[in-house]
Every structure is written in C-alpha cells, then in structure tokens.
C-alpha cells in the first residue's frame, strides 16, 4: 500500500475543508474499489477521507420531494430499505447483485456512482428514476442531473474540492415500475457484460406509455440513457411490437467495445434482449 494520510471527519463542513486542501484527496466509503485501486496503483492519494461518519452522508429517508440516499449508505442499507424495495425496485435489484454479500455490506451506492465505472450496476436504475446528485464544496452546493454526471470511464464532472453529498430520486408516479437486469456468464460475482434499467409509467385506461426511461451500462464509455428508445415508447400504447421497436432503438444508443467480457456485436444483442425483458418486467409489475 502506498503512503497516504487519513482523516475521519464527523461534520460536512470539516470534510469540505479537508477536500479544499492541495494534493490528491480521495473520499472513502466502502473502500471496495478505492482500497484495491490504491494497492494496485490504479489511483493514488495524498489523503484518504473516510466520509462514513458524516450524518448528512448517512441520510436514508423518503420526504415530500422523494428518496434521499446519503453518499455513504451501503448497497445493503439501500437494497433492504423498505421504500426502495417497494417503489424503486430496479435500484434494490442492482444494489443486491453488486459483488458479494461482503462487498454489498461495505460498498456505497454513492461510491458506485463516484467510481463511475461504465459497468456500475446501480447507475442505470438511478438514471431511470431521474436521480439528482447533490454535491458540495467549501464554496457551496450544486445539483447535477445524474445523466450529466459522468465524463468518461472512471471520470465524473465533480470539480476539485467537491464531493457527493446525496442522491435524490423524485417520488414515483402511480401506475409505474422499474426493473434492472444485467448479463454475466455465471450467477454471481462478476462485472456486467451489459446491463439495462427500465422505467415505465402507463395510463391505466388505455395502456399508453406516459413516461419511459431506459438506461444502459457496460456498452459505452459511461452509463447512459437511451433517449431515442424512450421517445419510441412515450405516447404510444404498449404492445410487444412497440417493445421490440424500443429495444432496437436502445441498441442504437450503445457504442460498445470488444473486450475479454464480450464482443461489441454480442453486447449490442444483449442490449436488445435486456431492454425487451426489463420493459416486459415493468409492464408485469404495473399490472401486477
């Protein structure tokens, strides 16, 4: 392990003062990415700041403006939270399939977002639920739509001195549901070859799609929305044929690479299949 200093602030102000300092400063939540990255030299740090003892970053509650997930909350905390299990099911599904149980107990959903891996499993569910990232620095706070948060593999738009405070997901509308599926060649403990999250809101009188969200992982430099596929769905009656057209449109949003986990062509086919399946699961959950 390389040399670095360590701090464990107990207030947000104290933390932001630390992050305003010079050198490479890394936030530590579960450590399941960053500790390994430090050990292997893939990231470096002059100072590691454990942010888990900051009350605002441990927030996990539903208020009038939606679900608030503090940046230091673990995948287990989030995946087992009753409101997440009932109303934001795709997020519960993704939080409970990252790594192993040991990993889920430590790794934060906020950490998964800030690590910004193209394959981050919690990210498509957060995107389809229109999550906003609340970030702060010593000079103030700002809100960033999560769809604007990612800049490249492992890169976010966070500026020097800024940290993620919480993720806010607006309340879900009636007659809506979300779902997340990823493909891996075994049952557990792997990184997605491709992942798709979907969200649908249907008009109960005629089954027309009032709102659609589709987000993809592992098929582009960052997780991303498949907006053309959403537009295919919105305003039209949800049929198997429409789902097929949307799945084809989702493939168009993917710009995958060929690597050890799968070829670009295979990943595009996975986007089609997983989009079709997640939309069908959303429909079943709504009609439930």
């Amino acid at each position, binding site marked *: 392990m390389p040399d670095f200093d360590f701090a464990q602030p107990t207030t947000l102000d104290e933390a932001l003062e630390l992050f305003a300092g010079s050198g490479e400063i890394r936030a530590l939540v579960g450590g399941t990415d960053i500790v390994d990255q430090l050990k292997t030299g893939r990231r470096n740090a002059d100072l590691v700041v454990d942010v888990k003892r900051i009350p605002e970053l441990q927030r996990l509650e539903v208020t009038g403006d939606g679900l608030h997930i503090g940046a230091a909350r673990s995948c287990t905390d989030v995946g087992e939270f009753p409101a997440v299990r009932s109303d934001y099911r795709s997020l519960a599904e993704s939080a409970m399939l990252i790594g*192993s149980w040991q990993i889920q107990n430590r790794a934060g959903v906020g950490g998964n977002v800030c690590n910004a891996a193209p394959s981050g499993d919690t990210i498509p569910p957060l995107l389809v639920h229109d999550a906003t990232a609340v970030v702060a620095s010593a000079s103030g706070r700002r809100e960033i739509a999560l769809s604007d948060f990612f800049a490249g593999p492992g890169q976010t738009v966070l500026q020097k001195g800024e940290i993620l405070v919480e993720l806010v997901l607006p309340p879900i509308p009636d007659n809506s549901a979300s779902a997340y599926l990823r493909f891996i060649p075994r049952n557990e403990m792997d990184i997605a070859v491709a992942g798709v999250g979907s969200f649908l809101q249907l008009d109960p009188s005629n089954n027309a799609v009032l709102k659609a969200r589709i987000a993809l992982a592992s098929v582009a430099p960052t997780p991303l929305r498949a907006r053309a596929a959403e537009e295919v769905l919105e305003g039209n009656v949800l049929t198997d044929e429409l789902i097929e057209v949307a799945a084809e449109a989702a493939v168009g949003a993917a710009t995958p690479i060929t690597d050890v986990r799968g070829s670009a062509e295979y990943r595009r086919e996975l986007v089609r299949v997983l989009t079709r399946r997640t939309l069908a699961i959303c429909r079943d959950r709504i009609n439930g």
Partner: protein
Amino acid sequence: MKHISMTVNGDQHELLVDPGWTLLETLRDNLRLTGTKEGCSNGNCGACTVMIDGRTANSCLVLAAEMDGTEITTVEGIAKHGKLNPVQEAFIKDGALQCGFCTPGFIISATALLQRNPNPTEEEIRTRLAGNLCRCTGYDKIIMAVEDAAAMLRG
C-alpha cells in the same frame, strides 16, 4: 499513525495504526489472530471475511484506521466457552473442507447468514456464500454443512 479503539471477539484493543494498514494485516500481524486468511487481497475470494458490527466484510479492503469504535468478530471468536458453534460442528461432521484455507471465511459468512435467517433455502445459501471461494470441495459439502447447522440451530 492513528489511534483506534476496537473490540475484537469481545476484547477491547487500543492500537496505533498506519493509514495504509488493512484490517486484515492488523488482525494478523498486530493482534496475531491468524485464523483470518489472506487469499487474493482484492475482495474476490472471501478468505479474509470477518464481521464488522455484525455484518460481513472483506478485511483486505478495509483500512484499520476506519475501525475506531467498531466490534469485530473473527473465526477465533465464533466458538463460545470452549464449545464450537453449530456451523463449525457441521463443517467437521460433513467434511466440508479439504485444505481448510477458505474455511474461516466460510464459517463467518455462514454464521452471519444463519443469524439473519435460520432457515435459508439452498439458493439463498449459495447466493450469500458466493463471495467465498473454495478450490477443493466443489461446494456441495459446504452447502450441506450450512443446511445441517441451520437444522441444529432450529433444534
């Protein structure tokens, strides 16, 4: 160095730790609790599994400096008053190990699972133990041992 106070298997320890030390290194090298094993050192194999405040974690990915005020359980703390716990007994009875290197991690994960759910399905056992790798047994005897331990715990 950072001063931490942590409870390990019921004993409180005051330690000065380097920010770069992992919990695994501190348990093994400072506290000489060598039951917890180092396998891959990157969070895949689960040989280093311990409980932190009742939840399992890969101690190779945890900094000792994070641990101030926490309660740690290692495999050395699983047997109580000289009596093996049901998971340990079942592993022996069912021969759920060969080389034994992965066993402490499995014992911790299985104990944590049964504390949470004394009657898990085979699927739940396999899912919850997916972060513990065994290269000898092929897993069937391990799954059987956890099912037997669950039956013992339910009486």
